[in-house]
């Protein structure tokens, strides 16, 4: 392999490393911001900011599961009016809520059903769903980092929201020595 081949290979590697670095940076910032919020409104705001600024989503809504009567109720929306509640199992949103399996179609014309639908998981159950109908005009396709961000939101958004809800309910952070010691005691 000649010098010019080496040069091309090094350039390709450098580009790949830059892209990887960029992806890790986005994932780190998204995780950090989501878990540093102690107010449910702030967690939802962070979730919206990630979807708009990092993914390039334009029209989307976040639903949270209402256990009785098993409805996914919208808690916030961007680029659209707050949509109606969806019964578990109904359409793409209800199916994702029921199965916990993501629905991932690439960027394309917006229709009545969302192109992307991600379950928000809390341990082994689905606590909510993010549905994206449309993307910013400059977003021409989904990148590897977008799928990583969807995966991250599915795994972390609900737990961040739950921790913030608990903190808001009690007026303080749920993590205190006496609480933790009490919870650990039976296992010792």
């Amino acid at each position: 392999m000649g010098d010019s081949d080496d040069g091309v290979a090094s350039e390709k590697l450098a580009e790949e490393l830059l892209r990887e670095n960029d992806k890790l940076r986005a994932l780190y910032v998204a995780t950090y911001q989501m878990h540093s919020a102690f107010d449910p409104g702030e967690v939802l705001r962070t979730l919206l900011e990630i979807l708009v600024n990092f993914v390039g989503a334009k029209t989307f809504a976040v639903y949270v599961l209402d256990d009785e009567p098993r409805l996914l109720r919208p808690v916030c929306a961007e680029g659209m009016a707050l949509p109606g509640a969806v019964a578990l199992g109904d359409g793409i949103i209800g199916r994702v809520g029921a199965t916990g399996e993501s629905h991932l179609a690439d960027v394309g014309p917006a229709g009545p059903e969302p192109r992307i639908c991600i379950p928000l998981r809390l341990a082994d159950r689905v606590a909510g769903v993010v549905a994206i109908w449309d993307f910013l005009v400059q977003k021409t396709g989904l990148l590897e980092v977008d799928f990583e961000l969807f995966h991250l939101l599915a795994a972390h958004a609900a737990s961040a929201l739950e921790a913030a809800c608990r903190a808001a309910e009690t007026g303080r952070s749920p993590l205190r020595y006496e609480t933790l010691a009490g919870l650990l005691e039976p296992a010792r």
Partner: protein
Amino acid sequence: MTEPALTALVVEDSPTMRQLVVFALRRIRGLAIVEAEDGVDALKKLQAQRFDIVITDINMPVMDGLKLVHRIRADDALARIPVVIITTEAGAEDRARAMALGANAYIAKPIQGPHVLATVKELLRIP
């Protein structure tokens, strides 16, 4: 300790987006980064210290990015600072309006770190 050679002002109301831009810029060795939450906050900071580049969002409360560009270009002491716009508005008209007001570069969200880095480096003449 030596003073940083160059200083950038990142103006963005979203803490999440601001952090992403700051992290991208941290790759430039010797670049000090100051953050502002909106146009008014940015102007205060621009009057308090010297900056080599401003990277700003458009849609912000209190004073938006386009008004900020206008104010920067209208002030003799600040007029020569390069300004990069980072925004969700990617239409040709939005871009033309920002450039007509005096922006030096226009980047549509979602951003790619290497693109932001290359744009800022070019404006700061960093090889």
